[in-house]
């Protein structure tokens, strides 16, 4: 990479940091318990809108993994998500009613909170429908992973988005509050992911899975990106560039080995496709607040009307992380 490009990325990073700084006033604290954050705590950052039904299980899942404090941005929910979160002891929550799109899909908000509160912490950035799976997650807490990453001088950890879906129609089984969504959406595509390298930011660009297969068979380039780097040992000078797909400085994006080896990586189980999805897609279409003029939601709406089934004969049923490791979707790297 030349000095010129490096300089341009530096400018870009600065611009995003300033942007995050300016957007900080769009957030009002509903409950700010950040004074309880202790050195070395693992933090979780999340933006959401109308996800109350998912929150109890979400909090339970990550508390069990060992997240110490949650920081939410509630983008003008109308279902009481914000109030519910404000009652939790280990949660700080901010309310924002400005445009999701203009905050670059929540990234600016979270960048600010991270700049402010995450410096020196391991920090996990996920959506309410994403569940992190990492090697040995059934026997070792998240702290074991972050300690190991620290000892190995690794600053960022990749976890690709894996779309989970139910067998049968998406709206067949209703999701109950507090339920493990993986009881319903427990199938996934095992081996249809296409990878290319983004030479500008140095990250990999992964597309594929059921969304590409069912919603974008003719325009695979428009299918959503699945590469994610959700777990980062934060420094106040870092920024997420686009969702959690990539960061700056770009060294953090080098979560893959180029010389034949495998680095350790995990998977984010993406449980978007529950019965709540159709309503959500309809709402997002009218709000038009999503990426690339909500092209994704338009495609969903079109396909979902006639056949809301993502399952196929070669879908794989989820068992555990070892299965994902054997299938080559994630890797233990040299963690043993």
């Amino acid at each position, binding site marked *: 990479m030349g000095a010129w490009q490096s300089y341009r990325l530096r400018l870009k990073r600065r611009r995003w940091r300033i942007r995050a700084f300016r957007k900080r006033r769009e957030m009002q604290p509903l409950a700010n318990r950040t004074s309880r954050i202790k050195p070395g705590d693992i933090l979780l950052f999340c933006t959401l809108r109308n996800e109350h039904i998912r929150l109890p299980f979400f909090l339970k899942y990550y508390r069990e993994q060992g997240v110490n404090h949650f920081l939410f941005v509630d983008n003008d929910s109308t279902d009481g998500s914000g109030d519910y979160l404000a009652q939790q002891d280990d949660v700080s929550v901010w309310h924002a009613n400005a445009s999701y799109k203009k905050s670059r899909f929540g990234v600016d908000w979270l960048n600010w909170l991270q700049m402010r509160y995450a410096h020196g912490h391991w920090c996990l950035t996920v959506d309410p429908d994403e569940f992190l799976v990492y090697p040995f997650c059934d*026997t070792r807490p998240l702290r074991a992973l972050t300690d190991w990453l620290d000892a190995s001088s690794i600053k960022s950890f990749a976890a690709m988005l894996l779309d989970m879906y139910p067998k049968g129609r998406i709206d067949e089984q209703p999701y109950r509050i507090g339920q493990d969504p993986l009881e319903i959406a427990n199938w996934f595509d095992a081996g249809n992911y296409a990878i290319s*390298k983004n030479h500008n930011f140095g990250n990999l660009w992964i597309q594929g899975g059921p969304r590409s297969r069912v919603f974008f*068979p003719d325009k695979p380039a428009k299918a959503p990106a699945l590469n994610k780097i959700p777990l980062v040992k934060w420094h106040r000078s870092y920024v997420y560039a686009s969702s959690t797909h990539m960061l700056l400085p770009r060294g953090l994006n080098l979560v893959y*080995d180029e*010389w034949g080896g495998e*680095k350790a990586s995990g998977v984010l189980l993406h449980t978007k496709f529950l019965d709540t999805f159709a309503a959500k897609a309809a709402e997002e279409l009218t709000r038009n607040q999503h990426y690339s003029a909500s092209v994704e939601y338009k495609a969903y709406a079109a396909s979902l009307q006639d056949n809301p089934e993502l399952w*196929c004969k070669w879908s794989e049923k989820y068992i555990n992380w070892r299965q994902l490791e054997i299938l080559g979707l*994630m890797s233990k790297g040299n963690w043993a």
Partner: protein
Amino acid sequence: MTVGIVMLVHTALGRAEQVARHWAASGCPVVIHVDKMVPKKTNDAFVKALSDLPDVLFSDRHRCEWGTWGIVAGSQSASELMLEKFPQVRHVYLASGSCLPLRPVQELIDYLADRPRTDFIESATTADVPWTVGGLDHERFTLRFPFSWKKHRYLFDRYVNFQRKIGYRRRIPRGIVPHMGSQWWCMTRQTLSAILQDPDRESYDRYFRKVWIPDESYFQTLARQYSTNIESRSLTLSKFDFQGKPHIFYDDHLQLLRRSDCFVARKIWPHADRLYEVFLTDAAGAMKRTEPNPGKIDRIFAKAVERRTRGRPGLYMQSRFPNYGWENGMTSGPYSVFQGFSDLFEDFEPWLAKATGARVHGHLFGPKRVEFAGGESVMNGALSDSAAIRDYVPAAFLTNLIWNTRGERQCFQMSPRDTQDAAEFVAKDPNAQISVISGAWSVPLFKSNRNFADIRKEAAKLQRIENDFLDIMRNPNAKARVRIWTMAEFIEAPMEPLQTIIDEIGHRALRRLSEVPKMAELAGFGQFLQNLKNQGMHPYLMGDFPVARDTSQNPRKPRKPYLVQ
């Protein structure tokens, strides 16, 4: 007579205290060296916590940074204190705060009592071991290292290069042969005191102070001077990864550690509550019940290193995306590509499936859709038959298919009518077995009921595409197993090439083919080619087809399926 434990501690002091109590409870005196980097307050609390044990002492503190002299200095002062204060000690065991005794301490005492003259210290000459990290083996004894490897890597590397360039070499003190090995040792009072009370110690210390990672070489080298009986192995189970950093043990390693048959293991994750609980409280029951199986730990960690450095062949994923040439296998297994066969033979695909037992696809790179075997619309791994998805990243499509069907041989057809995007990838892949009958694309044209002008145009196009394809296959960079026959050559004696290909796929026991695919009826084909020539389009890829040959062969028609013994 007993064993004295010298313990180097820098973090997780709570765990260190637990372990120190465990040693002391079994009658082993303990001397602890606390890293000077530990804040005074923390240290004081630690010292106070252990003040109720008379046999636990604390030595002078030194600053211990990885790869520097401090660790040796710490071991020296702690050992001196140990030898001075506890005359009953015969062996001194060097351990760290994150070491955990796996077997009852009494067993260790008995074991060492049976070997009163033996020093357990791993010690090998630099030339003979591949352990070193960063390419510095002998040079760690002959260069200077004023910059920290961890904090000032850039300066470290520059300064090493500079010294290499000007040919700088430190002189190794006379009489010393540098040895290296695990920093965790167990030595007898005799050997250890000889090292510590050596009249030349000052000059040795001065020399080793500037050696890189002296904790792996100081005692290891000097023990060779004095020991009468060195057993070159460490009693501490400690595994290292590819960067020379110790692997860490967690609760889920409990069964492995139980069966490891080792006295002490390092390094244990401080929050591995279950390990500490089992091995420190239930010492008698911790180790004994199962058959020792120390090899298993080795295998697990060796595999982890292999995975990190070599990876799984043919896998492309979020954390493995090798540069060209570094794939360690571009695809995960062998597969076969056929060009022209399904044009020349009418029932080639079912025949091939029957003859080899492999999965035989149609034209995977067909322009309209992916022709999976059996006309499926989705294949293993939920691979879609959409041509657009396939053409988005063609190499990914192919590597995915081969990866998803590991253990089953894949065969597929190619043709100049297909998209050619994958040709280059296939040609470079040593796993590909490519067989081409050049010019066979003309058979469907010959059979077709189209205007000759269209046929001529199409033929010219296909011939150009196939010619490019053959150029790629014949490129010196091509690593695939490529076989090319002209069509004329092939129909002269079709059995032999078919037999070779099938044998190479080799799923079934080697035997002669008893059944061959049915070849298309070719009467009049020579004339067809001649017509193309007459129109100014010279077909050359199919070899020489004399117009006359057809007529001479006419009496034999129609060609029957033939049998070869």
